[in-house]
């Protein structure tokens, strides 16, 4: 799309021309921040409309998942949980995981879902996947209540690391945006993405230390897969910030760089692909 002119005085002058590759305009996204807000607000408002339990679902989803995992992995399989009560252990993994996985799923389908917007009106297309990922933060913050109750119930007192929680939440959202932007743009052309996505998310779940402890991963190939999965460090870090234990360490640096690299690549791909969104979708 043609970029807005840089002339700040006549903001309303628009030049339309074939775009140069890599022409990315963060200022334009900023100018549309109110729309970003409304798109996030729409996601949140609409999600639990016409459900009997409404916003209650935000708490029920992780609660049910926690119970199921506690029974299967904690009771039957007796997976070690770094000395923590298993339900608390799994919940500290589930929250960042759901923030990421929910964001990724919504983001990947976002452009196709909003096809009628794409074909009818101009605004920075990037707002759509970003808003889909950000909307998960509202659920996340609300479900921290459940986490708080669990911490009190098991008498676990977080230390100073608690202050780092926002960092890990942000990393999870950033990861959802980074991978989601790729998938969303690919999905416009190849609907294969939305068919394959549930499998991808499921596999991803099993290579992330949600239900099991990162300490279990030791041998060669699993170590490698684990290292390539940035969510592993994010989840581990999130858990550490609440209940201590094994810290994320240097691995977190690698995960962050990986997320940023995927994000930059995704933005470049998105920019190139968005020119034809309205024609292909």
């Amino acid at each position, binding site marked *: 799309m*043609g970029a807005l002119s840089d002339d700040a005085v006549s903001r309303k002058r628009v030049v339309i021309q074939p775009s140069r590759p890599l022409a990315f305009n963060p200022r334009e996204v900023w100018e549309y921040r*109110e729309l970003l807000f409304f798109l996030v607000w*729409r996601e949140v*408002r609409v999600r639990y409309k016409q459900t009997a339990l409404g916003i209650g679902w935000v708490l029920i989803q992780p609660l049910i998942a926690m119970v199921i995992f506690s029974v299967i992995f904690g009771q039957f399989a007796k997976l070690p949980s770094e000395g923590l009560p298993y339900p608390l252990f799994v919940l500290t993994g589930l929250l960042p995981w759901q923030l990421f996985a929910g964001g990724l799923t919504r983001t990947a389908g976002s452009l196709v879902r909003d096809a009628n*917007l794409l074909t009818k*009106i101009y605004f920075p297309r990037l707002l759509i996947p970003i808003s889909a990922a950000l909307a998960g933060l509202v659920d996340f913050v609300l479900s921290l209540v459940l986490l708080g109750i669990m911490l009190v119930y098991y008498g676990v007192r977080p230390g100073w690391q608690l202050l780092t929680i926002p960092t890990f939440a942000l990393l999870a959202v950033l990861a959802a945006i980074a991978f989601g932007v790729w998938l969303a743009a690919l999905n416009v052309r*190849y609907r294969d993405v939305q068919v394959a996505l549930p499998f991808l998310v499921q596999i991803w779940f099993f290579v992330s230390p949600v239900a099991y402890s990162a300490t279990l991963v030791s041998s060669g190939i699993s170590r490698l897969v684990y290292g390539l999965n940035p969510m592993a460090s994010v989840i581990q870090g999130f858990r550490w910030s609440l209940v201590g234990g094994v810290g994320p360490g240097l691995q977190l640096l690698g995960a962050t760089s990986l997320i940023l690299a995927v994000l930059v690549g995704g933005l470049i791909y998105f920019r190139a692909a968005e*020119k034809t969104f309205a024609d292909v979708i």
Partner: protein
Amino acid sequence: MATAVRVEGIGKLYRLGRRAQRVGSLRDAVRAVAGAFRHGRSPGPTLWALRDISFEVQAGEVVGIIGRNGAGKSTLLKILSRLTEPTEGRAVIEGRLGSLLEVGTGFHGELTGRENVYLNGAILGMRRAEVDRKFDQIVEFAGVEAFLDTAVKHYSSGMHVRLAFAVAAHLEPDILIVDEVLAVGDVSFQRKCLGKMSEVASEGRTVLFVSHNMPVIKSLCTRALLIDAGKLVEDGDTDGVVLSYLRTSDMPKGESHLRQSDSLMGTGEARLRWAGILGRNGTTSGSLHFAEPLRVKMHFEVFDRVSDGVIEVGVSTLDGQRIATMMNTDTGGEAFTFEPGIQEVLVEVDVTLLPRDYVLHISLHYYSGATIDLVDNVTRFSVINVALDSGDHYRPYEVRGYVRPSTRWQAPRAVG
């Protein structure tokens, strides 16, 4: 006067090969990539939908854009509204651009009318404070005060369109783009829209207006652009351009095959693919004998089942004056059910059109009013002054009027 829009050598190239695999699968992509390596770079044929379009519009001008279906008008508007990028050339827009291509997009059925006004306003580029200021006006214009806190999915399609238009109309753009939006809504609302458009124009704002309706173009626009086969062929005062459009437009006579891109209106559960006027022996014909019934056969490609379809067939003169409109629900008829696939519909109209040239328009709606597909100027046909076999030829030297109603006369008798 200041320039509002400057277009310099705009062109848009479509790759037909790629378009064909629009919602392609990964396998197609792999094949296409493999093919590209084998045969060099560009796979498939290409088409310039627009080429070398240059013009300037001064602030305050109301410009009509006319041309046949598929001439490139919509591509031009899409480029100006930044929905698709030009392949070459450049355009500069001075000021806020609002387009009525987007009426109702971004409305979410689960949100209330009030919430949708704010959401839609933001999508159209209004600041929150601006929506706050205009909120009452918008609601009043749409006439939905009583339903503000009802989810929009419970609105009738008329209310939906009115509210959507009201938001768009209050955007107060410096440049307004309108593409046949007048096809939606009931008559009184259409009048309201036209009023709003001339109001916008009289306030010194710039309007670009695409329509097939020549009388409306003539009454609203001071200048017109004629686009044909992707080229700007004429640019001048409205009357002259409209005249040469009518003269040169060699619409297909008697039947018309429609391509996917010919019709962009409506919700698209079904699309008109072919329509023809049937002559005496059942083959399509561009001319009818005088007093011969008008028989129209249509093929719709139905993608999703439509259980309450209303077909509207319209006949107008060449300059767009509507003579007659027929629907299958007239005089209490049932709405039609369309099953997926190609569906054929035949209508026979008992009307005696006077010998002239006419244009056929076809649209498909839901019974509730929402448009599924709409194709103006489907085909042109003429009625000749010779009757088929009854000797009922049209004798007057001059053609007066458009139709001959059937009449019953009482012969002279003495009354006093």
